[in-house]
């Protein structure tokens, strides 16, 4: 992506700070992300990757700094606000409710109501949601025979598929994937990478977090390296090799 720099960033972070008590998780983090771009977010365990994406999605409120979407400063009161702004997130620690059905999970937080008075009273149109979930998932390449089974009944890979599918199906601007290939085999990981590439093809901005550096080098246009809560490198993928990336992550070659 060489031409994107001229556009307006779809997501921009300015001087984000976040602490958990005395632990500084994010230290003055700034970067810009553009539509149709896959950004790799890498760093050692505890570097602050998950904290960063939870800040972008509104799970954590930053202690300082600004988040801009399409050039406008936004304040998230809850993840609900970031979702409404077109940002979807796949969390590392499962974001699915195992006792709810696949359909209920796909529509969690954005339930379809019945028509008329019952709908205004809060009654759910469960059938519409099951049907909608099937369609949404199929549209992003995931076929699941019945969506009225609980997530607890699915295998680990299937759960991950539902979680990724849900995120991609709802994302309008930005999709954040926190270690989506964790616990997956080689072939399954390959499928996830394909999904990422096609999300870019749709014009989404993808933030991809992974410890598997060859994957990051394979699908990302740009790589941001976090170390101890700070951005230490932010450069096009072409400037990295596995070795130099590892060096930037650990800080050993400096």
């Amino acid at each position, binding site marked *: 992506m060489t031409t994107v720099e001229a556009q307006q960033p779809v997501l921009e972070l300015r001087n984000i700070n976040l602490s958990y008590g005395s632990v500084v998780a994010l230290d003055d983090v700034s970067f810009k992300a553009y539509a149709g771009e896959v950004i790799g977010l890498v760093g050692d365990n505890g570097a602050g990757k998950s904290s960063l994406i939870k800040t972008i999605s509104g799970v954590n409120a930053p202690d300082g700094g600004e988040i801009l979407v399409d050039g406008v400063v936004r304040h998230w009161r809850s993840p609900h606000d970031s979702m409404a702004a077109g940002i979807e997130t796949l969390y590392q620690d499962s974001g*699915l409710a195992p*006792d709810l059905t696949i359909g209920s999970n796909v529509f969690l937080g954005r339930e379809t109501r019945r028509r008329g008075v019952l709908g205004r009273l809060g009654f759910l149109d469960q059938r519409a949601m099951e049907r909608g979930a099937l369609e949404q998932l199929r549209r992003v*390449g*995931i076929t*699941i025979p019945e969506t009225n089974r609980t997530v607890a009944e699915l295998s680990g890979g299937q759960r991950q*598929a539902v979680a990724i599918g849900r995120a991609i199906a709802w994302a309008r601007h930005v999709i954040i994937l926190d270690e989506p290939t964790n616990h997956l085999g080689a072939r399954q990981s390959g499928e996830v990478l394909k999904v990422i590439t096609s999300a870019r093809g749709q014009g989404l901005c993808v933030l991809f977090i992974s410890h598997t550096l060859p994957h990051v080098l394979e699908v990302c246009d740009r790589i941001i390296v976090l170390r101890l809560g700070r951005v230490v490198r932010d450069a096009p993928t072409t400037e990295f090799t596995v070795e130099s990336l590892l060096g930037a992550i650990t800080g050993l070659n400096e």
Partner: protein
Amino acid sequence: MSTSSELAGALAGQPARKPAGRSPFRRVVTNQQFVLFVVLVGLIVFFGVRNSLFFRVGEFSNLLTDFSGLILIAIAETYVITAGGIDLAVGSTAAVTGVVAAGWIQPLVSHHVNAALVLLLGAVISAVIGAAAGAFSALMITVFRLVPFVATLVTYSAGAGLALVISHGAPVGYNPGAIYWSATGVSIVTWLVAIVLVLSIGLGLILHLTIYGRYNFAIGSNEFAARAAGISVRRHLVSVYVLSGVLAGLTGMFFYIRSGSGAATTGVTNSANLLAIAAVVIGGASLYGGVGRWSGTMLGAAVLTVVSDGLIFINVPPTWIQVVVGALIALAALLQTFRRRGGATGRTT
């Protein structure tokens, strides 16, 4: 988007496996509601055979009233437990509201104020007191981060103590006029029972068919997932404990109307708590949250009512009833473990 292959199939590594134990027969016989229904019928037949007076219409009416005194707090507990919490304060909240409502209402009953008005006023007072108790628990849980067990234990102790202080340990506001409401109605269904049943059905619909209920299960199943999906977890939990308090308060009012006086005995307080939680557990809910059904709780409450009344009916000392209730909880827990192993999970939606 056109991914080359079916991601789900590829991610699963193999075709979706049908969990073991989903055969129709096994599903039916391990279905908690089905088992409970069989147990319920069996118990009724058993007590009837031991003492045919058990089949009298009057006794059935008694059962229905006792059942009604239990289901509101059992349903309250269903909401709280499926949301991943527990409320140990329903019994004492009922006791407090019972004695307070009794004290306030008795003069009105004595002055022959319109009975429906008195009843409504009493219900509002009880609901408000209950709501305050629930809000107190919710405050400790959501703001001071106490675990629900401890927070509601505090509310329980405070409530039980308060009830004794207010009532000086003696029945309050005795007035036979109050009992009038528990004795009139259509056929064996008294007005009191009818109101409670309608309220219960409404609460069941809300739990299983509305967004509020959906959020309740989502939070109990995975609080983080609920929060990440934009659900206001804290606000929902506050509302659930307040709802539980309101239902406990109304139960206190129910006890007052039923007996014609408010009593604050710890026996009633404790057994109400025990029975409410037992009904939910016997009904198949998971104490880890996320799993449970209104129908299960209703059946659980019915079984407990029949057992409690039936044992007295065949002259078993009341002290044994708690032992039997304990055994029923153990059986229900065993059944749940068996179901888990069978691969079937509780469905909430």
